[in-house]
């Protein structure tokens, strides 16, 4: 199945090994990958080439992941790009990311953390399960 063929994914992660990993998974689906190692670079690349999906690691220095997410969602041109958030640990950030993202009670905190009430479209935890990732992407791109 190659309905993902030639689609472009932006992988934002400060760990090169992680980027290679996801690229390999996407390459098996014949997708193209562009990457960024911080939020600033991610915004640059998004402007250059509007990706079909963004795979975003939130565990990066200076919260650049979250900052990038805010900028994205506040921009009319890019707010509709599906964002899949990858999370390494909720412990480090001191916040249970999953509940923060999906549970309603945390609206205030969410706004503070993300700067916006917008939610990522999907959430997966490291280590990334290749099958799961592909399924999620298919969900967002084919629709």
């Amino acid at each position: 199945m190659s309905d993902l063929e030639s689609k472009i994914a932006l992988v934002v992660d400060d760990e090169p090994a992680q980027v290679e990993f996801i690229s390999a998974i996407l390459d098996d689906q014949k997708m193209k990958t562009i990457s960024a190692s911080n939020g600033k670079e991610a915004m640059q690349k998004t402007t250059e080439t509007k990706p079909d999906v963004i795979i975003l690691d939130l565990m990066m220095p200076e919260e650049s992941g979250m900052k990038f997410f805010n900028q994205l969602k506040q921009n009319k041109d890019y707010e509709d790009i599906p964002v899949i958030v990858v999370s390494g640990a909720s412990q480090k950030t001191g916040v249970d990311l999953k509940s923060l993202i999906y549970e309603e009670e945390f609206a205030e905190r969410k706004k503070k953390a993300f700067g916006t009430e917008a939610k990522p479209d999907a959430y997966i935890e490291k280590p990334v399960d290749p099958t799961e990732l592909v399924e999620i992407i298919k969900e967002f791109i084919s629709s």
Partner: protein
Amino acid sequence: MDLFPNKIKFIKRATKSGQASIKFQDVLEAVISIVLTAFDADGCSIFLFNSQTDSLELAATFGIETEEWRVPKIAPDKSICGSVFKNRESVLSNDVKNDGRFDSAAKKEFMFNTYKLMAAPLMLNKKCIGAVEIINRPSSQDFSSQEMKRLIAVSKKIAVLVENERLFDRCCQKLHQRNTMLDLAREVNTARELPDLLNFIVITAAELLNSEASSLLLRKDNALHFEVAFGKKGTEVKKLTVPLGVGIAGSVALSGKSTIVRKADTEGSGIFKEIDKKSGFTTRNLLCVPLRVKERIIGVVEVMNRRDKEGYNEDDIFLLEGFANEAALAIERAQLIEKRIQAERLAAVGRTVAGLAHCIKNITNALKGGEYIVDKAFRDDNPTLLKKGWAITKQGSERIRKFVHDMLTISKKREPECSVCSPHEVVTQVVQMIDEKAKEKNVKIKTQFDEKIGQVKIDQKNIFRCLLNLVSNSLDACEENKGIIKIETFKVDEKPFFGYRVIDNGYGISKENQKKLFHDFFSTKGSQGTGLGLSVTHTIIREHGGFIRCDSELDKGTTFTIELPTGH
């Protein structure tokens, strides 16, 4: 007639408790000297009734030079003073030896050199509190009935005086006790660990009650366990358990009622003999009070073998109970604090395990990526991809090895393996190691050496690790193209120490994070950081007997300063 106080001999104290004030004695002495002068007599004695021992005791005397004369107690019916006291009637005799009223045996024993005497009861309202007696006179003149009347009048005044002094004395004592209790309460409640506290309690109890020995037993389930003992063979006694209800301690623990045992060697005294056998200590008399916290009895305190008296009395119960109340509260508090510390330790262990698991999880995530890529490389028959995948996998392995090494470094206490070298050598090695990475980011590295240091004795490998860690951190913190890292060595004045400084102009560390800097697993580097680097550095520096310090300002830069002993 010599009236100086130092000629006066005292045989018995007047007051009930063992801590009579000297002042009372002085008063009695003064009274006696006045009486002697007034009545022109050789000797004068004042007897006071001791309700505790139920006997008439000699309180003060002057003029009778008898070293051999021991009058511990006079049973009321066995002497002149005794009968004077019992019958509340005064007596006058100018020829004691031949006076039929007096018991001959008593005469022999107590009064062999008394030939004239006058004695009057000390009456206080309707109560008789003792007797005063005047004997002999230098002249041959007999005692007259006129003088008898005067003595009776004087005796009333003496009685009032004695009573006043006793009341005053008792007040002073109570006050002193109260002050002692307050001091003790304060002492007992200074933060102490449980074993120290228990020791303090037994030693203080023994001192307070002037006793040879003391013990403290705490309740555990249905038995009392000897926690500490003073004056007894501590280790032997510690193994002993007293079931509730058995022995004095066991009964007091059950009933909550303080108990005195006057003669421990008699049958039915209730003493649990086992303890004496094991401790090699013989209990003669004992006082046991409960340790009570609100409604619960948590144990007992015992004191044994009163030093200055034949046993314990009501006052002693009051004193020890007061102290025991404070002690019980302090014990409970110490126990609660211990429980809390235990809980915190467990929580810390839990946190550490979680931290460990987290770090390892990060590394294995990377390994998974490597595996996938290697698999794909085989599928696609792509050697370049294979190289990449394999590199990632190897790196993951290396990371685990380093992580384990770091953990071992932190957890083991080792002596550093020192060798003599130049302190600058280590810096040069670090610069060589980090050079490529620095060039990639276009960050400048400068060094400045202080030649005055000379040779030093350090664990080169580990100091290299520390410096490398600090310089790597600085490199991470610096901005591309703008970063500058300075590594300096310096000599410390007036101490056999030298130091390293790693200075960067990177993004700095917030005051908040500065506090957590050396804590395990603290990292600002997301999934890349294990959070162990600075912990390891700190441990290594400490093992050397050195110090490490961080000064930093956000957006301005950071300086880490290490000071180490030169080793000579």
